[in-house]
C-alpha cells in the first residue's frame, strides 16, 4: 500500500498538555490515514466539545465542530449526504455522557461512521469534574458525587446497543494505528474507545499509568473488532435499497367540479361521534362531495390522543367562495351520533338556533335547543354503529341543501373502491330505500 503524506495541519500544531494521551491518538490516526492512502478531501473529521474537540483543527481534512454531545448527529447527516466520504468522529467521555441518546442511535442504525471515544475519565477542559466513566474511587473536581454513581463501560454499552465493530485500547498500545485502520475500513458503525491519561487534571490527583490501563484492559477482555452477532447491512446502503423500490410521488389528484354549486353562502357541518365510527372518513366524503360541487372546503378534526377511545369530531366548512375564517360561527347542520362527541360540543348544540338542523341518532341524548331535530333509528335500519356517520350523510342528502343523492354517491365512488365502495353504497341505500 502506498503511504500518502501526513494530513496533520502544519499551521496548527497539536497543543495538548505534556503527557496527554490525546497526542498519541492524533499521531496514530494520522498514520492510519496515511497507511490507507487517504487524502484530506476524502475525510471529514467531526469533533465534539472538550480536548477531543480540538482534533478537527489539527488535520487538513474536511471538518465540522459543533455542540457538546452532538458530533454523531452531524456525522450522520454528512455521511448520508456524502456516502463515499470517510467520516471520523472524536469525542471524549463527556460527549459520551451528554450525547448518550445519539450514541445508542448510531449503534442501532449502523451507518458507516468511525467513532473514537477518547476516554480520560474526567472533564479535563472545565476543571476535572466527574464524567460518565469516572471510577467511584477517583478523586476529581466534583466532591463526593462520583462516589455515588456507577461508571459506564463504553464497550458493553455500545455492544448491547448493536454496534457491529467495537474495540477498546489504551492510548499507548502498539497496535493503535492498525486498530484505527480496521475501524475506518469497516463498512458500518465502528467504535474504538481509547483510554488515556489526562495529565492536566486527572493524574494530578489519581494514580494512573499507561501500564495500569493496559493491565486493566487485558484483565477485562471484551470485544476486539467485529461482533459476529451484530453484523448486518450498513444503513445507507440499506436505505438506498429500500428507496429504490418506491414509486415516484405524484401530487394527490384533484376532484374536478362536475356538479353545480348547491349553496350561495357558507355552510358549516359538525359531525359528533365516537372513536371507531369513521367520523373523519365521513367528513372527508362530505368534503369531496363539496369539491365535486365546486365548493371550497375546510375540515378540522378533534379526537383524543387515545385514538381508539373517546370522542371523535369533525367540522367542515363548505363555501362557494374562498373559506376565510376557519372557525365556526354556528353550524347549520349537526350530526349527533354518540354521547362522546355530543358531550364535547354541548355548548354548540345548546346555542343552536332555528336555522340549524340536528340529525340525531336514536338513543343519543342532546341538550335542548331551538334547532330542528331529525331523529333516525339507525339500529332499526340494520346499520352498525361504524356506519352511522356515513348513513347520516345519506340522511343529509335527503334534505335538499348541500348534498343530494347523486353527489354523495359520486363522492363515495371517488373515495372508495371495490368491496368498500359496494358496502358504503349499501349503507346509503338503507337510508334512501
Amino acid at each position, binding site marked *: 500500500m502506498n503511504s500518502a503524506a501526513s494530513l496533520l495541519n502544519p499551521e496548527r500544531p497539536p497543543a495538548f498538555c505534556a503527557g496527554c494521551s490525546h497526542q498519541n491518538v492524533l499521531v496514530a490516526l494520522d498514520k492510519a490515514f496515511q497507511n490507507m492512502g487517504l487524502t484530506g478531501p476524502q475525510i471529514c473529521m467531526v469533533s465534539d466539545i472538550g480536548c477531543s474537540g480540538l482534533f478537527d483543527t489539527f488535520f487538513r481534512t474536511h471538518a465540522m465542530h459543533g455542540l457538546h454531545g452532538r458530533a454523531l448527529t452531524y456525522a450522520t447527516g*454528512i455521511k*448520508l*449526504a456524502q456516502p463515499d466520504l470517510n467520516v471520523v468522529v472524536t469525542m471524549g467521555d463527556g460527549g459520551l455522557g451528554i450525547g448518550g441518546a*445519539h450514541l445508542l442511535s448510531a449503534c442501532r442504525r449502523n451507518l458507516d461512521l468511525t467513532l473514537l471515544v477518547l476516554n480520560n475519565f474526567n472533564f479535563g477542559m472545565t476543571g476535572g469534574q466527574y464524567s460518565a466513566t469516572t471510577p467511584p474511587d477517583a478523586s476529581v473536581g466534583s466532591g463526593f458525587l462520583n462516589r455515588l454513581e456507577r461508571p459506564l463501560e463504553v464497550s458493553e454499552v455500545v455492544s448491547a446497543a448493536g454496534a457491529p465493530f467495537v474495540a477498546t485500547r489504551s492510548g499507548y498500545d502498539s497496535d493503535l494505528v492498525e486498530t484505527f485502520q480496521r475501524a475506518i475500513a469497516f463498512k458500518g458503525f465502528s467504535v474504538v474507545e481509547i483510554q488515556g491519561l489526562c495529565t492536566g487534571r486527572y493524574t494530578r490527583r489519581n494514580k494512573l499509568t499507561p501500564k495500569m490501563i493496559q493491565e486493566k484492559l487485558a484483565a477485562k477482555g471484551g470485544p476486539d473488532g467485529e461482533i459476529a452477532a451484530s453484523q448486518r447491512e450498513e444503513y445507507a446502503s440499506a436505505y438506498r435499497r429500500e428507496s429504490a423500490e418506491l414509486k415516484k410521488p405524484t401530487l394527490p*389528484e*384533484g376532484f374536478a367540479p362536475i356538479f353545480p354549486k348547491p349553496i350561495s353562502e357558507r355552510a358549516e357541518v359538525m359531525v359528533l361521534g365516537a372513536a371507531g365510527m369513521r367520523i373523519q372518513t365521513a367528513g372527508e366524503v362530505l368534503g369531496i362531495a363539496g369539491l365535486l360541487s365546486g365548493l371550497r372546503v375546510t375540515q378540522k378534526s378533534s379526537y383524543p390522543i387515545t385514538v381508539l377511545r373517546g370522542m371523535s369530531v369533525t367540522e367542515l366548512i363548505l363555501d362557494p367562495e374562498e373559506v376565510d375564517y*376557519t372557525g365556526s360561527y354556528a353550524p347549520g347542520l349537526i350530526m349527533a351520533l354518540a354521547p362522546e362527541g355530543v358531550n364535547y360540543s354541548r355548548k354548540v348544540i345548546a346555542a343552536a338556533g332555528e336555522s340549524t338542523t340536528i340529525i340525531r341518532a336514536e338513543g343519543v341524548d342532546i341538550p335542548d335547543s331551538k334547532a330542528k331535530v331529525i331523529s333516525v333509528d339507525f339500529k332499526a335500519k340494520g346499520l352498525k354503529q361504524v356506519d352511522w356517520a356515513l348513513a347520516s350523510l345519506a340522511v343529509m342528502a335527503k334534505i335538499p341543501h348541500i348534498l343530494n343523492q347523486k353527489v354523495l354517491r359520486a363522492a363515495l365512488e371517488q373515495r372508495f373502491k371495490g368491496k368498500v365502495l359496494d358496502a358504503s353504497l349499501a349503507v346509503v341505500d338503507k337510508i334512501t330505500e
Partner: protein
Amino acid sequence: MTALFPAQRRAWDTIEGKGIMTMGMTLMEGNEAVAWGALAAGCRFFAGYPITPATSILSTMQGILPPVGGIVVQGEDEIASTGYCLGASMAGMKAMTATSGPGISLYSEHISFAIAAEIPLVIVNVQRLGPSTGSATRGADGDVQFMRWGNSGGIPIICLAPVDIKDCYQLTAHAFNLAEEFRTPVFVASNKEIGMTRDSVDLSTLELPKPIDRLGPEQGRDYLPFRPLPGKDIPGFAPIGGPVISRQTSSTHGEQGYITIIPDEIGEVVERLQRKINSQADRLAIYELDEEESAEQLLITYGVTTRAARVAVRNLRAKGEKVSHLTLKTLWPVPRKVISQAAAKVKQVLVVEMNTGQYVREVLQVVRDKPVNFFGLMSGRLISPAEIVKACKKETHHE
C-alpha cells in the same frame, strides 16, 4: 405579495417529466402543502421527531422524499434531528426540519449553530399553545419572539408566516431560497390551525419562485470558508465532502474557520451576521396591504388570524368604518418600512395576535407617533371576526 419573488414557473416542473393537468381541488392539510413546497424547492433531506401538530410534515416527507433519492430520518430527538440537517446541509443538500414549541426549545442550540456557522436550514414551526408542552392540538402564535431570540447571541434570523394552505406551499419554497441565498436558518411560522386544517387547494396551479442555490467559492483564490464573496456579506459555500477542503465550526471564528479570540476579528463577523439580514429587510418584506382611502385605523395581523381579520374588515367597511389591513408574511426581519408607510396614513394602529402581545412590541418600535393598540387571545381557539370588529371599534372610540 411583493414583486420581489417573481413567479417563474409552475411548481411541478421541478420533478422531472411529471407535468400535471389541472384536475381540480383536493383536500390537504397545510402541513402536507409545506412538504410538497419543500420538495419542489429542491429539499432532499428531512429529519424530524414526531410531535403534534407537526407530525404530518414528517410523514408526508417520508412518503415523497426517498422515492426521488432524498433522505428522511426520524431523529432520536429534536436535537439530533437538527444535527442531522446541519450535517447534510453542510454536505450540500437542501435540508428541512419541522416541529412545534417543545421541539423549538430543543432546537435552540442548533439554531444558534446554523446562525453562527451560516448553514442553510428551513425550520417549520407548527405552533401550538404553550407555555411548555401546553396543548398539542390547540393553536397559537406564541413562538414569534422565541423564534427570533431563541438563539444564544441574539443574531437575526428570517421568519415567514403563512396565512393559509397556499402560503404553506409557496412560502416554504421561498424559505428554501432565502436559506440558500443568506446561508441562515429560515423559519416557517405555521400554526396548528393552518397545519392540521384540511383545505381545498390545487397545488399544480400555484406558482413558485425559481429555486436558488447557495453560491460557490470565489474563483481563482484559495478557499476560506467564511470569507465573504466580493461585494457581498455572505461567504461562498464549498460542501463538506467536495474536492475543496471545507471547515465548519460552531466556535467564534475568523474567515479561515478556526476558533479565534481576537475581538476585532470576532466583531467583524458578528457585525456581518447582523448586516447580511437586517440590511435586506425591505427586500425581504412579503406582505399584503389592503388599503382603504382615508382609513382611520390600520389593522395589522399575520398567520391564521389574517383570515378572521379579512372578514372583520369586510364587515367594518360594510358599516362605513374606514379601516386598512396589513398582513405581514415576513415577520423577521421586521418589515419596518412597510409598517411605517402603512401606518403613516392612519390615526391609529391595532395589532391582533394569537398570543399575549408579542409582535406588537415590534410595531411599537416602528410606529412612535400615534396610538398602537393590541388585541390578543391565547386560550386555544381562533380569534373570531366579531372579536376583531369589537377591538377595532373599541379602539376607535378611545379618541
